[in-house]
C-alpha cells in the first residue's frame, strides 16, 4: 500500500528579504562615509606595512634566535628549541617572506582587536543593556560565514591587505570583548567594595583593582583572539591578502599537494608558536 504524502511549501506570497536592507545600508555608508573609509584604509595600511618593515628588518638568524630565547625564557629550553626549529623549517620551505607578511596582518588585527575589544568589554561589564545588545551581535560575528562580510569589506576597503585585516578583526574580536567583560564582572565583590570604601574614583577602582584582577582572563581572551586571527589567514587571501594563505589558495587552484602541505604546515607551526607564547605571557599575569 502506498501512502501519498502531500508536500507543504512555505507560501510565496509573504516574503521578507533582510539582505536587501543590509545592501541598502552598505550603499548608504559608501555614499556618505567614503572619506572615512579611505582614511581608515590608509591608517591600517600604514600599520601593516610598518610592522612588516620592522619584522623584515630583523635578519632571519636573529629572528630564530629571538624566538628561541622567548620560548626558553617563558617556558623551557626544549620549547625554545622546538619553536626555533619550526620557524627554521618555514624558512627552509621557502616561505619566510610570506610568513612575515602573514605575521604583519595577524599582529595588526590583534592590536586593533585589543584596542576595540577591551574598552567595549569594560563598558559592557558595567552596563547590562549594552551586554544584552552585544551578545547576539558577537555570536553573529563569529558564526556568520566570513565570506559574507568579505563582500562589503571589499566594497569599503578595496582588495588586499586592508579588507583582510577588517575581516580578521570582525572574526577575532568577540572573545576579547567577552572575556574582558566576564573578567571584570568576576572581580570579587569584597575587593571592589574595598576599593570604593577607601574612596577610589571609578577610574581608580578600574585601573588599580579591577583591571589587574581581570588581567589573567583578559590575557586568555587575547590568546583566543590571536588564534582566531591565525585561522583567518587563508580566508583573507581569497580577497588578495599576501602571505602564507595565498600559497594555500594557489595550491588549491593547481591541485599541488606538496605546495598545499608546505604552506599548511607553515601556518600550523606559526599558530603553535604564537599560541604557546601568548599563553605563557598570560600565565605571568596569574595571581591566585
Amino acid at each position, binding site marked *: 500500500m502506498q501512502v501519498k504524502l502531500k508536500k507543504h511549501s512555505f507560501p510565496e506570497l509573504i516574503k521578507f528579504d533582510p539582505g536587501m536592507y543590509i545592501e541598502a545600508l552598505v550603499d548608504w555608508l559608501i555614499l556618505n562615509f567614503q572619506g572615512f573609509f579611505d582614511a581608515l584604509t590608509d591608517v591600517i595600511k600604514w600599520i601593516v606595512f610598518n610592522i612588516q618593515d620592522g619584522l623584515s628588518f630583523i635578519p632571519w638568524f636573529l629572528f630564530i634566535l629571538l624566538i628561541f630565547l622567548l620560548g626558553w625564557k617563558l617556558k623551557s629550553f626544549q620549547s625554545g628549541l622546538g619553536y626555533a626549529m619550526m620557524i627554521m623549517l618555514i624558512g627552509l620551505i621557502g616561505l619566510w617572506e610570506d610568513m612575515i607578511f602573514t605575521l604583519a596582518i595577524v599582529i595588526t588585527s590583534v592590536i586593533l582587536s585589543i584596542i576595540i575589544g577591551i574598552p567595549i568589554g569594560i563598558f559592557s561589564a558595567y552596563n547590562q543593556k549594552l551586554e544584552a545588545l552585544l551578545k547576539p551581535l558577537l555570536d553573529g560575528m563569529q558564526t556568520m560565514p566570513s565570506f559574507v562580510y568579505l563582500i562589503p569589506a571589499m566594497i569599503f576597503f578595496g582588495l588586499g591587505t586592508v579588507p583582510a585585516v577588517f575581516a580578521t578583526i570582525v572574526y577575532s574580536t568577540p572573545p576579547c570583548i567577552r572575556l574582558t567583560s566576564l573578567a571584570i564582572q568576576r572581580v*570579587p565583590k*569584597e*575587593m571592589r*567594595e*574595598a*576599593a*570604593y*570604601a*577607601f*574612596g*577610589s*574614583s571609578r577610574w*581608580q577602582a578600574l585601573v*588599580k*583593582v579591577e583591571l*589587574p*584582577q581581570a*588581567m589573567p582572563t583578559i590575557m586568555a581572551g587575547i590568546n583566543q583572539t590571536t588564534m582566531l586571527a591565525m585561522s583567518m589567514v587563508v580566508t583573507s587571501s581569497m580577497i588578495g591578502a599576501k602571505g602564507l594563505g595565498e600559497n594555500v589558495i594557489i595550491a588549491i587552484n593547481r591541485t599541488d599537494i606538496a605546495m598545499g602541505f608546505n604552506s599548511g604546515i607553515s601556518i600550523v607551526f606559526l599558530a603553535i608558536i604564537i599560541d604557546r607564547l601568548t599563553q605563557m605571557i598570560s600565565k605571568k599575569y596569574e*595571581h*591566585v
Partner: protein
Amino acid sequence: MSKKIEVKNLYKIFGSKPKLALKRLKEGWTKEKILKTTGQTVGVNNASFTVDEGEFFVIMGLSGSGKSTLIRCLNLLNRPTAGEILIDGEDIVKYDRQQLREFRQNKVAMVFQNFGLFTHRTVLGNVEYGLEIRNINKDKRKQIALEALESVGLKGWEDKMPTELSGGMQQRVGLARALANNPDILLMDEPFSALDPLIRRDMQIELLEIQSKLKKTIIFITHDINEAFKLGDRVAVMKDGKIVQQGTPEEILNNPSNEYIEDFVKSIDRTKVIKAKNIMKRPNALVSIKDGVRVAIREMQTNHISSVFVVGENMQLEGIVTIDDCVEAIKNKQSSLKALLRHDYYKTTEDEYIENLLENATKSRYPIVVVNDENKLLGIIVRTSILSGLLPYNSN
C-alpha cells in the same frame, strides 16, 4: 564625650520598588509579608542609635538580620532608602560624589569579613592603597604603611603576597590597611568570624589594645554574643532589620528585653562576660594594720569568718591574717599584726573576667581580693558569689 555618629530612622530596602515597601513597612507590615507580596527585601528597618567619640559599639544579630546592610550604610556602600546618618553633625546621605570620596578617604575605613585584600598587590601595596588613592607621595605612604604594619605585628611581611599569609595575618593586613588611613571611624563587618577561635581571641585582645591606644570610634559587627560582650562598650541587637535592644553588656545580660535576646543570652558563656567588678562585694570585715591582734580576732568572730584582710591608709592592701595565727600570737604575747601577715591570697583587678578567676577561686583558702592599680582594696569575691554570677538572670 561628643556624639560621633547619629543614625536616625534609617531604612534600607533592596529591590525595584523601595518606596512602596517603605510605605507598607510604616503601615506595620512584617518583613516577611513585604517580601511575599511586593518582592522587596527589607534590609534595615527604622534603625536609630548614636555612637560617642572613642566608643566601641557592637552590632549583634543572627545571620540575615541586617547587620551588614546597616554598617554598609555608614560609608554609603549601601545607599539608605530613608533616614539620616549624621557624622560629626553632617548628614552624609546628602553628600555629592566628591564629598563622599573625601569622606571615605579621610573619616572612615572598613575591615571586611573575608578580608577584601587585593590579591594582585603585596602586603605593603595593600596597606598603601588608601594613601595612594589620596595621592600621597611614595616615600611618605611607604613610611606610614610600614608603621601601620608594625602596629599590627606584621613587620617584615611587607613584600609577601596576601595569599601567602594565614587567615589571621591577612586580617591584620586588612586592619593595617584601615589604620594607615588614620580614620576617625573604623567599620568592622564580622572581621574575625572567618578565623579559628584561638587566633580570634588574640585578634580581639589586640584590637582592644589598639583601641585603647588610638581611641578610634569603632562599629563592630558580630553574630557571636561572647565576642559582642567582650568587646563592646555598648551593644545593639538586631533582628529582621530592626534594632531590638541596645545597652551595655551588663544591661542586656540582666534585662534581656525579649525572648529573642534571651535566647542569645542563654547561649552565652557568662564566665566570659561577667567581670570581677560585677560580682565583688565590699568586705563585711576589715582590719587596719594599726589595729592589734585582739581587734582582728573580734572582727573575725563577729563575722563568723576565719581570715580577714588587713589594710593600711587609704585602703591600701597589706595582707591577710588568719584566726589560727592570731590565737597563737596571743598565747605568745604578741600584739602586732605585721608579723602575722600572709600573702598567699589571689589578687585581681576589677576588669578581669570570672573565666580567669574560677580556678583560683576553688584553689585558694581565702576570698579573691580585687584591687586597683595603686593596690587599693576595692572588694572581695567569695566562692559563692562566683557561682551565683554564673546563674542566668540574677535578680539584683
